């Protein structure tokens, strides 16, 4: 194609990524702003990070969020891997249509519906069965594991579709049992999907405001809930600092995980 088009494509990339990243870049830059006014540059300063450390309000919420995120992501990994494997490999079984629908729908169903419906379930079940006794970390974890497992299932399913089944068949021919093959051949083979699935479920849990607001109790305020109530009062530079720390940690984990996956892939290709 002509040169004009390459210019067009370069412009599309520059404008597109500018749009996606400029707000984030400004947010990070202004977290180092000495001025109290959000839009006025008053020189470089770490003042707001100091405020953040002194402010205990966010620390407890962050710990709650981390605890929920780790538990929900781990639960979602197990459920989602089973679900993704089942829907990809078992092409006929009773209830497959419903199963497929339940695995897909939570990906797009609005969070307000997921949150409200789970809360009403928990309340009704508390009235009839006495469980859950109270709402808090446990109920938020259950809610996050539910939609997290659907995201894990999507990634597992996508990677299984491109997985070389000859390896599995070879192991079966050599006398391995189906679960042995799943554990020793298939799961190691889809390792990248498992790692990125866990990470996605974890970050979705860390990020969730809406579902947690519905199903949490007074004892378990999560980080997004704390951020939201402070943002509603007004924009403060302290939130910028918190957001920058949050972004930094998430990006660091994600980049590390993906470079690890990429290195393993290269080693596998080199060895294979």
């Amino acid at each position, binding site marked *: *194609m002509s040169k004009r088009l390459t210019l*067009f*494509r*370069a412009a*599309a*990339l520059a404008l*597109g990524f500018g*749009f*996606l990243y400029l*707000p*984030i870049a400004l*947010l990070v830059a202004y977290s180092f702003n000495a001025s109290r006014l*959000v*839009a006025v540059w008053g020189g470089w300063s770490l003042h707001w990070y100091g405020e953040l450390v002194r402010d205990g309000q966010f620390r407890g919420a962050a710990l709650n969020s981390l605890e929920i995120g780790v538990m929900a992501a781990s639960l979602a990994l*197990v*459920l*989602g891997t*089973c*679900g993704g494997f*089942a829907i*990809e490999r*078992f092409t006929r079984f009773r209830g497959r249509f419903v199963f*497929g629908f339940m*695995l*897909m729908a*939570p990906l*797009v*169903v*609005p*969070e*307000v*519906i*997921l949150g*409200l*419906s*789970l809360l*009403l*379930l928990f*309340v*009704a079940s508390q009235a009839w069965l006495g469980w859950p006794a109270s709402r808090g970390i446990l109920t938020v974890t259950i809610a996050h*594991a*539910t939609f997290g497992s659907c995201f894990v*299932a999507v990634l597992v399913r996508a990677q299984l*579709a491109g997985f070389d089944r000859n390896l599995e068949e070879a192991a079966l021919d050599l006398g391995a049992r*189906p679960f042995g093959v799943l554990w020793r051949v298939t799961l190691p083979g889809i390792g990248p999907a498992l790692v990125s699935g866990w990470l*996605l479920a974890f970050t979705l849990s860390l*990020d969730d*405001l*809406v579902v947690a607001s519905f199903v949490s109790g007074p004892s378990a305020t999560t980080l*997004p809930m704390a*951020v939201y109530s402070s*943002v509603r009062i007004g*924009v403060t530079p302290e939130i*910028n600092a918190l*957001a920058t720390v*949050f*972004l930094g940690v998430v*990006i660091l984990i*994600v980049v590390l995980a*993906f470079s690890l996956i990429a290195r393993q892939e290269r080693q596998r290709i080199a060895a294979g």
Partner: protein
Amino acid sequence: MNLWGWRRWLLIGPPFLWLLVFFLLPLGVVAAISLSQSADTIPPYTPLLIHGPNGLESQASLDNYRLIAQGDLRAYANSLGFAALATVLCLLIGYPIAFAIARAPKAWRNPLLFLVILPFWTSLLIRVYAWIAILQPTGLLNRALAGLGLIDAPLLLIYNNFSVVLGLVYAYLPFMILPLYGSLSQLDESLVEAAADLGARPARVFRDVVLPLSLPGVAAGALLVFIPAIGEFVIPDLLGGPGTLMVGKVLWQEFFDNVDWPAAAAVAMMLVALLTAPLLLAQRLVERKA
């Protein structure tokens, strides 16, 4: 398949039961409670069945739906309109980006794709919040425009239709780019070359070859943007004003501000009704690809 026999239920069972109990059953509970009335009890709604003189009596009513139908339907129209507009804008903005990534040198594609996905992994709340500082009357954009002498008075950029649609486009753009890239990267280059060799101009090649072949990606991306955007809460709440109500925010207000759980449940059922057709379409699309 025969290899697995009954053992496949060990894999199907746990996620199946989990989703049945924590996804499908709760929707049933919402449907039931939408038929009751709010009350000053714990939990704050009337029971559907009561013991009357003639045994069990039903107290279910459609009053909540009647109130919705008689009330202000602007929020529903707004939700559909904003979601549709955001979908079209995402398509127009996302298509050139997906196209450029699909045609970039091979070594660049994965890093570029990674950059598209990265905002996913970071907080939506934070990304939406970042726009407040840019758009507000004393915000960065107004100051920049005033500094350049382009405007005398601050522009009203926030708490209106513009800022809500902007927020939706910004938040959902990656959902459009990814499936588009999926379609465009599988496009057979030789078809494009053949069309060009036969004398088609670039615009014609695009219209008659590239665009039709990328339609599955367009459809998938459109659904991935449109469906969640209809029920969005954070964006209309932080970037919207009183005139830009969306269904997700109405549901939130009924629940948290009015503490009317049955009314919130009825709004949720309306939202489910709005979403049913696109959801079934989405599953059809997923199954056909598989």
